[in-house]
């Protein structure tokens, strides 16, 4: 597994990990060691907020992997995120056990009052953590595998792919809205109690989840880097820029695409799984096409094909969202819309574009350029 270790000798990666670790530890310290009266105290609310940002950052990294390096603009990654979230949600739901409103040992509340007499087959096994956590990866992975196989095999690319990925997430949204699906319909899954025996309502658990998100982000980032830095990563870039040429060199482009697409989907699922316990609810609105497109804009603003750019973008946009919706709600959509336009028209390389230049000089051998003909 030497290829996994490869990124560690990249400067950008070292820097990124350093910043991440410092940030997480700082927050932890400020949360635990500082007294609530102190102005530097980081409240549980803020920890939750930051944890959420980290999940979004991981999601953005996943999208950047396929868009930035493979040139596949997926407008449906929200679906993988949501599936991972639902897998986790189902686990948390089963953990409630007989503490639910109706005290039913097996059925979640919404099933009881929607008159489900027994647990639907696809809910079985989610009471076991290992199974649920496995599903967090398998469910989105399987969807990506089937969808990607069909799409890439028949060489659906560019705009067409983007549009059908959007159709996919839209269809899933409608499906999950249906109460017959047994996923709580519009309300989704909520009112969780504990995860792995830790009370979700305690600050300690919140902090734990925050740290977990940090680790997950580091892991996801490393995984993507090691793929990108490998020969496969170069093949990705090659097929992104000259697909036919890559085929003539003897590479099975569609398989490369499928592999990376599935990996990315699984990372998105992981992000979703960590997101759910921190916000305390998962419902079909995560499938909304708008959300998926928003993710893409995080990446575009941060800078494509530079994974850290995706992270920067995700955190910046969501931080902006937190402020705007707090201070001048009406302006939020203007701001977001403006971001879309600016990041595409004025900042084609994104914020990281500038930074990227420096790194590229140093690591010309194992990092790649940001210009992506979409």
């Amino acid at each position: 597994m030497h290829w996994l270790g490869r990124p560690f000798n990249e400067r950008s990666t070292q820097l990124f990990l350093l910043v991440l670790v410092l940030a997480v530890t700082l927050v932890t310290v400020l949360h635990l060691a500082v007294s609530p009266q102190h102005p530097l105290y980081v409240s549980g609310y803020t920890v939750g907020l930051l944890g959420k940002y980290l999940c979004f950052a991981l999601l953005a990294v996943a999208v950047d992997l396929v868009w930035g390096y493979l040139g596949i603009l997926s407008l449906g990654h929200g679906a993988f995120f949501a599936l991972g979230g639902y897998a986790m949600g189902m686990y948390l739901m089963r953990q409630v056990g007989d503490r639910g409103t109706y005290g039913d040992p097996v059925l979640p509340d919404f099933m009881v009052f929607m008159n489900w007499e027994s647990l639907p087959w696809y809910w079985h096994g989610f009471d076991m953590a290992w199974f649920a956590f496995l599903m967090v990866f398998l469910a989105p992975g399987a969807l990506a595998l089937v969808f990607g196989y069909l799409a890439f095999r028949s060489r659906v690319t560019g705009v067409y792919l983007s549009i059908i990925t959007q159709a996919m997430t839209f269809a899933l949204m409608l499906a999950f809205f249906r109460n017959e699906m047994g996923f709580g319909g519009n309300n989704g899954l909520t009112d969780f109690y504990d995860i792995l025996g830790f009370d979700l309502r305690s600050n300690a658990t919140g902090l734990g989840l925050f740290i977990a998100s940090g680790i997950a982000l580091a892991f996801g980032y490393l995984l993507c880097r090691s793929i990108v830095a490998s020969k496969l990563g170069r093949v990705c870039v090659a097929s992104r820029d000259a697909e036919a040429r890559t085929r003539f060199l003897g590479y099975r482009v569609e398989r490369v695409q499928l592999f990376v697409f599935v990996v990315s989907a699984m990372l998105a699922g992981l992000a979703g799984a960590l997101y759910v316990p921190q916000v305390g609810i998962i419902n079909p609105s995560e499938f909304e096409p708008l959300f998926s497109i928003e993710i893409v804009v995080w990446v575009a603003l941060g800078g494509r094909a530079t994974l850290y750019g995706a992270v920067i973008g995700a955190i910046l946009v969501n931080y902006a969202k937190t402020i705007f919706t707090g201070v001048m709600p009406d302006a939020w959509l203007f701001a977001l819309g403006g971001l879309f336009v600016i990041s595409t028209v004025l900042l084609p390389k994104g914020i990281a574009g500038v930074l990227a230049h420096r790194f590229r000089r140093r690591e010309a051998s194992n990092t790649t350029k940001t210009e992506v003909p979409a």
Partner: protein
Amino acid sequence: MRIPCTFLGHARWHAAMTRIVSLGLLCLLIAIPVAATAQDDVDNGQALLEALDVRSFQDKAEAINAIIESEDERANDWLQALLDGDLQRHKDDGRFVIVTDNVGREWPVIDALSGDDLGEMSRRDLARININNALRRQLRSALSMVELYTGDRDERREAAKGLIGKVDDELSDSLASRLENESDEDVRHRLNQALAVYRLEQGDIDAVETLAGSLNSDVRVALTRAADGEGAVADAAQAALADIEQTLKLNRGAETLYFGLSMGSVLVLAAIGLAITFGVMGVINMAHGELIMLGAYSSWMMQQLLPGYPGIAVLLSIPVGFLVSALVGVVIERSVIQHLKGRPLETLLATFGVSLILQQLVRTVVSPLNRSVTTPEWMSGSVAINDALSLTLNRLYVMGFAVLVFAALILVMHRTRLGLEVRAVTQNRAMARSMGIRATRVDIMTFALGSGVAGLAGVALAQLTNVGPNLGQSYIIDSFMVVVFGGVGNLWGTLVAGLSLGIINQVLEPWAGAVLAKIMVLVFIILFIQKRPRGLFPQKGRAAEG
């Protein structure tokens, strides 16, 4: 004339209603001098109205009959006012007034008895005399019985139709006599049916003869009742019912087809503009939905500018809607899209941003609430093919509109200089350039055209659904599906795709339910794209390389 008061009509009196209103106002003018001269009428009238001002609706029903029987000249206006909820009583001096305009806090009123103008009164001082649906129906039927005797052909027909299943002994005689001096064939036919239903209830087997083949639901109910029984009548009724069911099946099929086509034409309208911008320029315009929305809003705007003339407003809003959206389109093209030549995925993101901005703009400038667009008289209601099948007018108009727009576009594309240049640019931009075609100009024109058409779609949609900030959102994905399914840059493809998707959807809906039907259609399209990545009618050339 004698109006049987036990009779409760059961029919749609829309057509009749409007005439009653005018009729009522007319009588009002006549009524004033009459009332002024005859003093005793006033007291009598007061008494009649007093009877209305009670809590229980049964008593009110009695009071209404009393008014009708009184044959007072003002009866018509009173009932009309009562029907409209305009008959009110002053809380203090207890005199009855008719509110002529019940908007705002101060209402202009006239005296219900004398008809004198009493200026404005505060709504706080007035108590309206409530009616409910039962009373409303009674009023309408009472008012409209007049029609059966005095109304014109259509009114009589409506009235007669309403009588089916309502005939009792008392009424049957008066109807029989009415039948004598009824000239119009159709009215006679209906009166006959009405009487036949009555006779069928008396167990008259010949009645079945008259009723056979009728699709009228009341007739069917009567036959079903008869069929339950024993003996010859029952058998005859069952036979009659059987072939009625047959015809109904056919009608149902036709109906579904109509629904499909009308839904399809909406899809086509929404998508056709996209087919142009996407197909010709390879621009993924995510703001297309909002251009549709702007069209809808300009339709609303025109109605605000021309209060009282919804019809004219709708007609005017066609050019206006086109222009507004086209202009906005040009702005988008100049400000955003031209900077993203040949980067379709970027245009997708940028235009999506534009769509968000446009939405919020409407929210802050106009209102986050939906705006109400009134459907002009000539567009509301439906045309009855027969008693079981009737086509809704507004959708018929939209269909026709869609056909017109499509035809116009085909002409523009194949008969005009612009169309020629557009097609040239589509096939090979560089070549077209070198032949002296100003590609940028073509781009602007094309985008303006596509956007304008979106505006037209909006004008049409304003007659079918909400006019609100979210209007665009709900159509953008469908539009893209239609275009991709039909084959990018191929107008005919879009037409076929739109109509077929509409029909598929409507055929699926009854047994799959609305949600599943939509999901199925989406999945179908996704799979279809796997099979034929370039859609139904693939198109060669630059635009095809997504």
